């Protein structure tokens, strides 16, 4: 501390000799002052000294030049697109952010520098996966300097079909996300080598990382992986075992699948015109080793649970040959059995995981027919098989199903199609979207509808318009934006619909802007 500051802190009253000297040219100035109170002189001296120091302020020295960001590979998006993205990144129309970011990626554009902070501060795996490829070199560079942005390291530059040159280093030193990704890519090029990499570290990895690594075996899965997977069945972590089972299920020639088919065969036999189902009464050790879980979830009965698990691990085509009948016929043969519902569950799960096209429609039809029954029975492991099946059908097929449901028998809406609408792959096909919009406009004329008894909150056409706006393909925007006429009616129903249509229009407008601006 400078002596003058020390003196000021203590106070002149406690000092016999007050030292005014600052050791600067200020002292000569002060010496010229007429005699007076020492405190006054002291203050003037301090003031002049402060200004002297302020004027003589020196800069610091920083020798090291920081590392610079690499040159950009992608073009910066237009100012109009940047403005739009700034609104989305600020939280407006949240559901459209990913769509806009994906648009950028498709057009080979990147975010402008002034939006990088907002982009790096996003949360959620899906958003970040869309943010990462449009960060550009600058964004990647910036993310390395701030700890909360380290998530960027979990992503690897776009998959170009070949492995990055530093693949092995990434595998050994990278973050978990990076390691999983590099393993996945190696699987695509050289599955055997990837399996060897994994074997080498298997024992020393933590349980949850083992599970994450195992998922990469989906890529290029073959009989060559069987020995490793067979051994992994004895892993002490349940989630790792479950993942192993789901992989083995996909190797129809494996010993595992043979064991499963044998178990299935023992439970379901055909006696002339009916199927007889008999699950075991006790769960043996070898079943458990193959991943059959002993205790059922919820109110499902134990034996039913074992049955469902085994059936869902057997390729559905097996039953066609083994029982000598097509799916629809098999379902009929099962009609009498007390285990009918459980067998249907097992077969549905199997049809979906094996993606058995010949089974989808028959199963769909069966669950539609038994929808009410399924809802009432509480001992099912799942209740929404219709939705799940629909989701896995090819887009045009699923869309046709919904249209048929809407049109119903004689032009009257039938069934609860609106609950299934959310399962259609998005965006909808132009044809379906156009038809749907036409029907919506027809409905919006309120012909033959008593507005006073209409409850738009539960009406299938009006209750979820904002979500509809997200499903429409870009080619239908103009059509969707034609003005929507609403009758002049002060009732809350019409006001509610007006508001829904307003929101719908705003979302479409925003999406249209995204597709226009990001070009």
């Amino acid at each position: 501390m400078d002596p003058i500051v020390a003196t000021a802190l203590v106070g002149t009253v406690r000092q016999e000799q007050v030292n005014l000297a600052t050791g600067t040219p200020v002292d000569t100035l002060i010496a010229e002052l007429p005699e007076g109170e020492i405190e006054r002189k002291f203050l003037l001296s301090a003031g002049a000294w402060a200004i002297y120091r302020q004027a003589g302020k020196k800069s610091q020295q920083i020798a090291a030049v920081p590392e610079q960001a690499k040159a950009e590979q992608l073009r910066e998006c237009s100012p109009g697109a940047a403005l739009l993205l700034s609104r989305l990144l600020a939280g407006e129309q949240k559901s459209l952010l990913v769509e806009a970011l994906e648009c950028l990626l498709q057009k080979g554009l990147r975010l402008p520098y002034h939006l990088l902070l907002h982009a790096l501060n996003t949360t959620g795996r899906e958003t970040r996966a869309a943010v990462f490829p449009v960060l550009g070199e600058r964004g990647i560079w910036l993310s390395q300097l701030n700890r909360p942005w380290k998530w960027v390291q979990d992503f690897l530059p776009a998959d170009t079909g070949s492995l990055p040159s530093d693949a092995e280093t990434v595998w050994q030193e990278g973050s978990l996300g990076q390691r999983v990704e590099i393993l996945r890519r190696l699987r695509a090029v050289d599955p055997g080598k990837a399996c060897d990499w994994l074997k080498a570290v298997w024992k020393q990895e933590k349980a949850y990382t083992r599970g994450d690594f195992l998922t990469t075996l989906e890529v290029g899965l073959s009989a060559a992986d069987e020995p490793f997977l067979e051994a992994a069945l004895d892993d002490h972590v349940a989630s790792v075992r479950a993942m192993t089972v789901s992989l083995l299920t996909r190797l129809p020639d494996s010993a595992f699948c043979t064991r499963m088919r044998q178990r299935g065969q023992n439970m379901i036999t055909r006696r002339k015109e009916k199927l007889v189902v008999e699950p075991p009464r006790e769960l043996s050790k070898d079943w458990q080793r193959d991943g059959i879980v002993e205790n059922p979830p919820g109110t499902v009965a134990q034996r039913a649970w074992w049955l469902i698990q085994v059936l869902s691990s057997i390729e559905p085509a097996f039953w066609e040959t083994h029982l000598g009948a097509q799916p629809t016929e098999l379902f009929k043969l099962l009609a009498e059995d007390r285990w009918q519902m459980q067998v249907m569950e097992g077969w549905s799960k199997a049809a979906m995981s094996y993606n058995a096209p010949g089974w989808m429609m028959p199963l769909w039809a069966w669950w539609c027919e038994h929808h009410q029954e399924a809802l009432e029975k509480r001992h099912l492991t799942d209740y929404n098989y219709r939705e799940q099946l629909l989701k896995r059908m090819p887009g045009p097929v699923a869309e046709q199903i919904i249209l048929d449901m809407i049109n119903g028998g004689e032009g009257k809406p039938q069934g609860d199609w609106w609950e299934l609408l959310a399962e259609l792959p998005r965006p909808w096909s132009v044809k379906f979207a156009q038809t749907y919009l036409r029907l919506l406009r027809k409905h919006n004329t309120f012909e033959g509808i008593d507005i006073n008894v209409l409850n738009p909150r539960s009406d299938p056409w009006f209750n979820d318009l904002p979500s509809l706006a997200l499903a429409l393909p870009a080619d239908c925007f103009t059509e969707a934006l034609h003005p929507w006429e609403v009758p002049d009616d002060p009732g809350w129903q019409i006001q509610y619909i007006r508001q829904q249509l307003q929101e719908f229009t705003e979302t479409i407008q925003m999406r249209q802007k995204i597709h226009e601006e990001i070009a």
Partner: protein
Amino acid sequence: MEIQLTSDQVLAMAPDASAAAAGKKHGNVRLWKNLGMSASALWGECQGSALYQVKVELASLTSQCSCPSRKLPCKHSLGLLMLAATDKAAVPVIEPPEWVTSWLAKRQASAAHKQERMEKRAAGDEPSADQLKTAEKRMATVKKGLDGLDLWLNDLIRQGLASVQTQPASFWERQAARLRDAQAPTLDTRVRRLAAIPNASADWPEKLLAELGKLALLTHAFRLEEGLTPEMREEIRQLIGWNLTQEEVNARGETLRDDWLIAGQVVEETERGKMQRTWLFGTKSERPAMILQFSYAGQPFGEQFALGSHQEAELTFWPGAFPRRAQMRTRLGEIAPLKGHLPGTDKIDTFLNTVAGSLGRQPWLEHFLTLLCEVTPVCSGEGTDWFIRDNEGHALPLSGSDHWLLLALSGGYPLDLAAEWDGESLRPLGAMAQREYTLLGRTN
């Protein structure tokens, strides 16, 4: 005629974040009808809860809207400017309608009236006997107030600064109030600010001593009055609290026409409201100018400035030894965005020398406009310490906000920086990188 604002500049005019967000939303052509623009104005009708008529005078960016919002500019005005900035095709150049021309005519008339009034006053009659008497009385009151201040300062030094650590806020307020009563309002603010120094940093005794010392120098200078140049006398009087009216400034201050670069703005909370410093720089005269605005009780700041742009204009400076505070007298040209290098130095030491030179002319200056070229932001300690470094390795610490944004704009490469220097650190106002000027420090 084309409006040259960027969306960033429009948003910088927003009085708060919610107005900025709403402004962005209202920049949608679908919400507007009867849009148009002429050489002097921009207008349109916006469908909100009602149909609002919005108009903007282009030279001053003064806006008016028929909506009931008290914000200035309101979201509709911001939306209109936003639309004009981003979607030029949406605003055709046409003859203005009656509701726009009548507003412009009214504005012109009132400006002319004001000018006339000022000229009349400038022509100035000799002060009346009453006025002289009032002035004399005030001088006596101020002198008495300063005597009191000197006693108080001496006593502080006698007792030692360590003693103030235990003093309540009222200790400072009491002395400040005495100065207010003594009609020395600027000194009142200065003393009130002292309360924030003790224990606020490790070197607080030094800072407090410096401020007390400068106060003593000020009262000392005041007593020397006759020995000072008229300019210095004018300066000292302003530092104590003889405030000049706009008319007085126009009458007595120097008017300078230049192409003024509008670098940025700092808003500070004060005891009774907000204070805004807008920093300008004359590109031909190479002179800085500072426009001070005050807002009380949530009222908007009156005049708008398009930050990050430049405009030909006449400014009038407050008279003094180092005229820097100024007011806008006449706006003469179009508002155009900044492009290319900022007119600054690429050596930090050159800038510090300029500061020393300014202090030599007016030692009580506290804030300085800084324009640095080819400098690089440097972050150390995971974003806790920030510096700006020139190409010779000289560096100054950064304060304020938006440092990460500054770093994102730089990418480790040099850029041009506009900042406000407070003697210790630089507070970023804006940065020029890739020929784009980005405003900084608008968020806290």
